[in-house]
C-alpha cells in the first residue's frame, strides 16, 4: 500500500512537471478573474494571439473574482508579481487605485466618456454590462415595463432575485433601486412588495439563472446581454431582456497597470491589445458590451438592447452600500 502510494505520488509529481509550462524571465504577469483566465474563457485564444504578435510571453494568473484579486494585490503589496490586473469592477476600483499607475492609452479616444470612471486612467474600462430582468416571453403574463410593474400582484412568485449580500448582481439591483427610488419610503415599499413577489432570493447569479432556465419562474435578475446566449446557442428569441425607461444599473470592468512594474512597455501593449483586437472575443465570452465604439457586434447582440440611461454602481460609496444592505435585510426579514 505504501509503495503504491509512493509510486503514485511520483507519477503525479512527474505529470505535474511535464505539464509545467514555460516560466521564463521576461514574462508579463497578468492577474485576471477565473472566467477570463480559463481555457474556455477568452484567454484560450487571445493570449496565444498576443504572444505571437508581440513576442511577449504572458503568465496569466487566475486570482479569483474582482474582490479576491484586489485583496491579493493588497496582501502582496510591493512584492506582487502582477504587472497588469484585468477585471476590476468600478465599484471596487477605489481599493485598487493605490496600486496602479496611470496610462493614457491612445485608444482612450475610442471609448465613450461616460464609461471612463477613473479620471486619472489608472483603470481603463474594457467592457461593461447592464443589469436587467430577463423574462420568458411565452409565460403568458403581461410584459413588465418598469421596476414598479414588477411589484404588481400578478407577478407573485414569478420573480427570481439574488441576495445583495452574496452576489454582485444582487448588489447591482439594490443600488439600481437606490438610484431610482432613493433610500426612503419608495425604496422600502418596492422591496416589501418584491419580498412577496420573489419566488426565492438566490445566493448567486448561477443558481438564479439555473432556476430560471428550469422554468421555476419566468422572470430573473440578470444582464441585458443574457438573451444573446439563447439566440446564439438555442436559436430562440423566447428569452428577452426587459429594458426599463427608468434606466439601468451598469457594471464596468477595468484593466490597469500595476505600480512599479519593470515591464511598463509590454504592459501598455497588452492593455492596448485588450482595448482593440481582444474586444469582440471578450464581449462574446463575457456577455458584455465592448467599450471600443469602433467594434462591430455580431447580430445576436441585437437581442441585447443597450439601455439609454445607465447608473454607475461605482458612484455609490461603500458606506452607503453597507447601509443599504442593512436596510434591505431588515425589510426582507420584517415578517419573520
Amino acid at each position, binding site marked *: 500500500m505504501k509503495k503504491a502510494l509512493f509510486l503514485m505520488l511520483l507519477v503525479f509529481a512527474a505529470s*505535474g*512537471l511535464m505539464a*509545467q509550462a514555460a516560466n521564463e524571465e521576461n514574462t508579463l504577469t497578468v492577474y485576471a478573474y477565473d472566467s477570463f483566465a480559463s481555457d474556455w474563457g477568452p484567454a484560450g485564444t487571445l493570449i496565444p494571439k498576443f504572444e505571437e504578435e508581440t513576442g511577449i510571453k504572458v503568465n496569466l494568473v487566475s486570482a479569483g473574482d474582482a474582490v479576491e484579486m484586489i485583496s*491579493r494585490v493588497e496582501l502582496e503589496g510591493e512584492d506582487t508579481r502582477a504587472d497588469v490586473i484585468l477585471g476590476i469592477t468600478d465599484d471596487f476600483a477605489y481599493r485598487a487605485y493605490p496600486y496602479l499607475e496611470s496610462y493614457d492609452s491612445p485608444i482612450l479616444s475610442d471609448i465613450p466618456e461616460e464609461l471612463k470612471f477613473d479620471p486619472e486612467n489608472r483603470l481603463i474600462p474594457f467592457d461593461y454590462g447592464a443589469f436587467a430582468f430577463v423574462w420568458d416571453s411565452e409565460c403568458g403574463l403581461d410584459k413588465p415595463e418598469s421596476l414598479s410593474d414588477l411589484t404588481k400582484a400578478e407577478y407573485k412568485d414569478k420573480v427570481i432575485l439574488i441576495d445583495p449580500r452574496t452576489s454582485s448582481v444582487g448588489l447591482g439591483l439594490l443600488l439600481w433601486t437606490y438610484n431610482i427610488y432613493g433610500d426612503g419610503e419608495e425604496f422600502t415599499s418596492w422591496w416589501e412588495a418584491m419580498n412577496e413577489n420573489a419566488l426565492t432570493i*438566490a445566493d448567486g447569479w448561477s443558481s438564479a439563472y*439555473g432556476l430560471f432556465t428550469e422554468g421555476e419562474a419566468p422572470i430573473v435578475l440578470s444582464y441585458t446581454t*443574457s438573451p444573446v446566449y439563447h439566440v446564439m446557442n438555442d436559436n430562440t428569441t423566447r428569452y428577452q431582456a426587459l429594458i426599463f425607461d427608468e434606466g439601468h444599473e451598469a457594471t464596468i470592468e477595468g484593466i490597469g497597470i500595476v505600480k512599479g512594474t519593470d515591464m511598463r512597455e509590454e504592459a501598455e501593449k497588452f492593455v492596448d491589445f485588450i482595448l482593440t483586437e481582444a474586444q469582440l472575443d471578450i464581449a462574446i465570452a463575457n456577455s458584455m458590451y465592448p467599450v471600443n465604439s469602433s467594434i462591430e457586434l455580431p447580430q445576436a447582440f441585437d437581442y441585447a438592447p443597450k439601455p439609454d440611461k445607465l447608473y454607475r454602481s461605482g458612484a455609490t460609496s461603500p458606506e452607503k452600500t453597507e447601509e443599504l444592505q442593512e436596510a434591505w435585510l431588515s425589510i426582507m426579514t420584517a415578517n419573520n
Partner: protein
Amino acid sequence: MRRKDSGYYTLRALPGILILVILFLIPLFFTFSYAFHDNGKALVAVFSDKYTYRLLAFTLKESLLSALISVAVAIPLSSFFSKYTFPFRRAVLTLAGLSFTIPTILVVLGFVIWYGNNGFLNNILMRITGRDYSVLSILYSFKAIILAHVYLNFPIAFLLITNGWTELPDTPEKAAYTLGAGRARTFFSVTLPRLLPTILSAFILIFLFCFSSFSIILVLGGNPAFSTFETEIYRRVNINVDREGAAALSIFAFFVTGVMLIITSPGRRERKASRKRRVLIKATGRKLFAAVLLMLLILLFILPPMLSIIYRAFYTKAGAFTLRAWEDIAKGSTGLMSTALNGIINSFMIALVASCLAVFLGSGIAMAAAKRNSWFIPFLSSLPMATGSVTLGLGFSLLAVVLGHDSILISYLLVTLAHLTIILPFAVRTIIPGAKAIPDSLAAASYTLGISKGRTLRKVEAPLLAPYKRKAFAFAFALSLGEVNATLTLSDGHVSTLPILIYRMISSYNYQGAAALGTLLLAEALIVFAIGQGGRKNAIS
C-alpha cells in the same frame, strides 16, 4: 502504563498534525488576527450585536435539526442493514455515498429539476391528479432546507452507523434476550450505549456541514430570514470587504462549533477484549421483502436528483434529446490544459492522493487519540471542518500570497495538501470509533509475546481498523472530488478539476454542459467506489 505506550502512537500521528498546523492553523491565526485590529473593535461589535445572536439561533436550529433527522432516519435503516445480508445490499451502500461528490450548484439544480414547482415530481403528480398547477410546493421554504441537508448528509449517518453496527458483536444482545429483556429495552440499554460513539461521530459531522452551509439555505429557503453565519461572513469578505468584521464573526462561529466538538467528544470508556464481528443473517421470506422495500425507499430518496442531472445532460428542458452538451465538452479539448479529460484526470489524481494520505495520516491520528484517550487530538484535527469554507478560503488565499510561486508542480502539491486538510477531519472522525473499539488488551497480549509496537499495529490493530478506513476513504475521496474553492485559490486557476469546469460552464450559461460534466463526475466516483468495494468479498460493508 498506557501513557508510556501511547508515545509511539503519538509519534505516528505527528505528520498529520504537522500538516494541519502548517496548512491550517497558521493561516487561520493570520485570518483571525484581523479581528484584533483596533483593540478588537470588530470583535466587540460582533459580540454585542443582536443580529449575531439571531444568526446563531437560526444556524443552530437548522444544523441541529438536519443532523438529528439524518441520524434518526439512518438508525432504523442501519439496524436492518447491519443485521441481514441480501442481494444488492452493498450496491445500495455504495450508491448512498455518491451524493457527496456533487458540487452544491448541481445539487440545487438536481433538486429543482426533481422537486421544483415545474419539476418532474410535480409534473407526474399533475398528470395523476389532473390539476394544472404544481401539486407539491416543497422548495423555497424551511422544510426544503432540511430536506436538502438530509439528502446530502443522510448517507454519512447511514454509512457510518451501518459500518459501526456491523462491527459490534451481537453477543451482549443475545445475552439480553436470553435474560428476558425486550427488543426496545435491549436496544436502549445494550446496543445504543455501545453504538453511541459512532452515532455521535455522524451527528457532529453532519452538524458541522450544515453549520457552514449557505448556498442551499439561501436558494432553497427562499427568504433572507434564513441566513447562517456563513452568509454573513461571505458578505463581509467578498462584498463589503470588512476583513476585521468577517474575522470577528468567524471567531464567534468557531467558538460555537468548538464547544460543540468538545461536548460531543466521546469520553473515557472501558474496552473489553471481545472481538467477534457479528455474522450477517441471510434475509429470506418476509425479511427479504422488507429488504427490497427498504432499498427501494433509500434509492427513491437518493437517486432522483442525481438522475435528474444525468437526464439534463441528454435532454433539453423541452424534452428533446440532444448530444450538444457532450459536443461542447469535446470542443473544449483544443487547449492543452483545462479540458474535460484533463479535468477528469486532475480530479481523480488529486482525490486519490489526498484521500490515501488522509486515511493514512487519519488513522495515525485516530489511533493516537484512542490510545491516549485524548479529546484534544481529534478536536484539533476536526478544526478545519469547524472553520467554514469562507474562512478556510481566506486562509488559503493568504497562504497563496505568502507562498507566491509560478510553478505548476507546486500548485498541484498545494492543492493536494489543501484537499488533505479539508478531508482529514472527515477521515479522523470516521476512523476514531473503530480505533476506540480496539481493546488495549489485544495490544498488550501482543507485546507480551515479544512483538514490536510497529508489528502489533500492522498485524493486530490495522486489520481491525480496515472497514473504518475504507469508509473514510470513500468519504474523503468523494469530498475531494467535489471541492472547488481551495483548488481555485491555491492553483491560480492552473489546476482545473471537474467541479471547477462545471462552474465555468455555468458562468457561460451552459447548464446542460455542466450537467454533462456532473454526469462524468458521478460516473468517476461510482467507478472508484465500485472498485474500492469489489475484490473484498469478505468485507461486510
